[in-house]
Structure formats: structure tokens, C-alpha cells
């Protein structure tokens, strides 16, 4: 297995007053370690721009993924896109990043602001070659990837931010680079980068974006495995087997659930020490157990993690809460959404007699539903997820 992992996160903001975004991002995975990412910005805004950018990104990602040349892709786009009746051109700018085996990146750029690369937090300018395809000039770069490489692709909504307000020429490339370098933290996830940048852009526009704005961040990092055990096994005799498989799996270990953590503590012969600090009124305290990175309560905590994960896929507004808080759900969220690249769930299917009280809003089926949904969302976020039931 390749030791590098591409963490990809993107976010868009509509032009003020528009219902649709004229930028479009397409992320197409090819096997385990190769990915095609296209960021397209359609001419104008609204429906027309949205159609243009969606078509462009779909055409490029599909053709590139099928191994066709850049030239063929561009010609196809030029021949296929509907022509704008106002401007007389068929037009959508694009940035294409093809990650090969997470070792090399092939980057093609057509008229979007040039991609910004930070290598270990410092700006790095990859060599560019110009490809002339018809009347279009396309920049091509090839980069050998290193751990902690950060790529920021964007639509011109970013560079235009603040024009006519605080900035005469908008948010200029040099200033964006300086900003990125000044806030650089190798632990920020790609989604966090996209969120931070977009927030800054929104500020510069004074909360009325003058253009559709999209940021796509790609961060190369080492794989990091997180193992989560949740629930005792359906058959009591399976307990030892389940725990030993959980502990044998490489990476960090987290136990969710009171009964479950007691079982693990017994197995390890260590004392389980519940804490009594409430950092969040609704989330039960965590516990400390030697050998485990984190021990939390079960259903209530995981339910909150699921809510945060869902929001992460959307506008990521709750990041301001889970990004720093010390309650179990926030801690688990940081481990899952920011730190881990691979998550293994060890799920026990025992019915918890404690939860069968009809006055309580938790039940066995809810727990199973939680895990199924959480696994689905983590996959969407780009994590490699593996669920084993016991």
C-alpha cells in the first residue's frame, strides 16, 4: 500500500443573490491511490454557468480517467459546450489535477487562477510548460509528491474578493500566498483549509460575494489508522476474540460505550477511570484507560459525531465547536475527521438491556443505524472505512 494519502476537501459559495453555483468540482477516484480532480468555472453566473461548469468537469474527469489525452479532452469540450448567445463563446475555465498513485501530480490549468502549492508550509513554484491547443493556452506541470504538500486550487471568485471595497485589485496571489503561509498548520485537514479560505473571501466581499467562489484543497499526508470499538458482541463468548482483533489492529484505539469500555478494561487488566468534567452539557464525560487514546460514552456521543460529520460535508459550520472543545464527541470528531485516513469499526451487536427502557430515546436499532450512516458519511468525506460486526 502506498504510504501517502490524498486528503481532498472543497467548498463553494454562491454569488450574492444566486441560487446556483457556477463553479463545479468533480472528484473521481481511480482505484485506491489515483484520483482525478477538476475545478471548472462556467462563464457568467446562475443556471448557465452551472451547466457549463458541470459539463466541463464531467467531460474532463471522465475522459482523463479513461486515459485520453489532454488535447482530446479540450477539443471535446470546445466542440460540445453550448455557445453563449450573449458572448458568442463556449467557455468554462478549468483546473485539472491528476494524482497518479499518490506519487505524482499532473496539473493542467486553463484560465483559472494558478494553483498555489505549499511544500512544508512554504510556497513552492512548480515548473510550468505551455501547451497550445487550438487557440487555448494550457499550463501543464508535473510534480513529484511529498508528504505535507498542500495544493490550493480556486476559481477567480477568490482573487476578485474585495475589489472596489478594501482592495483595489482584489485578493492578489502574493497576498493569498502570504496569508496561507502565515496560518499554515500541518494538521489542518483539506476541508479546514477550504473553509478558512472561503471565510476570508466572504469577509473581503463583506458577506456579499461578487462572484461564485470555490476552493479545493489537496493535502498529501501519511496514512493514519483509527480503530473504534463500539458495543459488546452479540454472543458473550466472542468478547475475547473481538477485543483481541481490535487491539491487534495497527493504529490508534478508541472505545465507545460504558459497558464496552468495562470489557476492554477487564481484558487489559487496567483500571477504567471515568472523568467528571462536563465540557458540553449534552455529552457525557470521557474516561481514561491506559492503552486507549480515548474512551467515550456510546450512543449519545456517536450521535453527535454523526451530526458534526454531516455538517462537515456541507458548510462545516460546527467546526468552530468541535475544532477545539474537550468533550468526547469533539475529541472523537477531530480524530475521525482530521487525523485519520483509515477508520476500522469493530461493532458489537449485543442488545443492551439498559437501553430497552421505553422512556429512553435510544435503542439497539438506532445504534446500528448510527454506524451505518456514519460509515457512509466518512466514506463520502474520503476516508477508507472498514466495518466488522461481532
Amino acid at each position: 500500500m502506498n504510504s501517502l494519502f490524498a486528503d481532498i476537501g472543497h467548498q463553494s459559495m454562491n454569488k450574492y443573490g444566486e441560487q446556483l453555483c457556477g463553479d463545479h468540482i468533480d472528484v473521481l477516484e481511480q482505484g485506491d491511490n489515483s484520483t482525478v480532480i477538476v475545478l471548472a468555472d462556467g462563464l457568467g453566473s446562475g443556471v448557465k454557468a452551472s451547466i457549463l461548469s458541470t459539463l466541463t468537469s464531467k467531460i474532463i474527469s471522465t475522459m482523463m480517467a479513461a486515459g485520453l489525452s489532454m488535447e482530446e479532452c479540450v477539443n471535446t469540450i470546445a466542440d460540445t459546450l453550448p455557445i453563449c448567445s450573449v458572448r458568442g463563446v463556449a467557455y468554462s475555465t478549468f483546473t485539472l489535477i491528476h494524482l497518479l498513485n499518490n506519487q505524482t501530480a499532473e496539473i493542467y490549468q486553463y484560465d483559472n487562477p494558478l494553483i498555489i502549492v505549499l511544500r512544508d508550509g512554504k510556497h513552492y513554484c512548480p515548473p510550468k510548460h505551455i501547451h497550445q491547443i487550438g487557440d487555448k493556452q494550457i499550463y501543464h506541470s508535473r510534480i513529484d509528491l511529498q508528504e505535507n504538500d498542500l495544493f490550493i486550487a480556486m476559481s477567480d471568485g477568490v482573487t476578485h474578493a474585495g475589489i472596489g471595497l478594501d482592495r483595489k485589485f482584489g485578493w492578489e496571489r502574493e497576498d493569498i500566498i502570504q496569508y496561507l503561509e502565515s496560518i499554515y498548520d500541518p494538521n489542518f485537514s483539506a476541508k479546514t483549509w477550504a473553509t478558512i479560505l472561503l471565510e476570508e473571501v466572504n469577509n473581503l466581499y463583506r458577506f456579499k460575494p461578487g462572484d461564485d467562489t470555490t476552493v479545493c484543497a489537496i493535502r498529501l499526508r501519511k496514512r493514519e489508522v483509527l480503530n473504534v470499538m463500539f458495543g459488546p458482541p452479540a454472543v458473550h463468548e466472542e468478547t475475547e476474540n473481538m477485543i483481541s482483533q481490535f487491539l491487534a489492529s495497527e493504529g490508534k484505539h478508541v472505545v465507545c460505550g460504558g459497558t464496552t469500555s468495562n470489557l476492554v478494561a477487564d481484558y487489559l487488566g487496567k483500571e477504567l477511570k471515568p472523568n467528571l468534567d462536563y465540557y458540553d452539557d449534552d455529552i457525557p464525560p470521557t474516561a481514561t484507560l491506559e492503552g486507549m487514546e480515548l474512551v467515550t460514552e456510546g450512543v449519545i456521543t456517536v450521535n453527535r459525531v454523526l451530526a458534526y460529520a454531516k455538517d462537515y460535508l456541507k458548510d462545516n459550520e460546527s467546526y468552530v465547536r468541535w475544532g477545539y472543545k474537550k468533550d468526547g464527541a469533539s475529541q472523537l470528531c477531530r480524530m475521525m475527521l482530521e487525523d485519520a485516513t483509515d477508520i476500522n469499526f469493530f461493532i458489537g451487536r449485543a442488545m443492551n438491556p439498559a437501553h430497552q427502557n421505553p422512556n429512553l430515546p435510544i435503542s439497539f436499532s438506532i445504534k446500528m443505524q448510527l454506524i451505518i450512516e456514519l460509515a457512509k458519511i466518512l466514506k463520502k468525506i474520503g476516508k477508507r472505512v472498514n466495518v466488522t460486526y461481532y
Partner: protein
Amino acid sequence: MKVTVCIGSSCHLKGSRTVVERLKELIEEKNLGDKVELAGTFCMGNCQKDVCVTVDDNVFSITPEGVDAFFETEVIAKL
């Protein structure tokens, strides 16, 4: 004397946070920090009732409203 409050899922939903916080306040108010040790535990298997609390080896089931009375009769009176 050791007072242990269950902070498992069920007891949490029935108000163990309020119980813990009120007990912390009472212990501080009465200056009993050196005599009463407050601890937490995960599920003690008494989920059908109110919040499960033990005083040394005796098990009690209390509501958030009943904390003060419980503290008087089961903690202070028995010190």
C-alpha cells in the same frame, strides 16, 4: 466516604450531569472535600430507575431534584 455517580448513557439522559454538578457544589459549600470523594462510573446496571448513585457499597436511585435531600440524609448524616 466515596460517592459514585453513574454517567452512562441512560443515567446521563436522566440527569446525571445535574446530579454531579450539584454534588460538587454541595461538597464545596460544606467544605467536605477531604472527607467525601466524588467519582464517576459507567453503567452499573440499574438503568430502569433514576440516576444511579452509590455511597461506598450502598446503591441509591435519585432524581436531579432529590440531590439536596439525598446529600443530607445519606452523606452528611453518615459522616
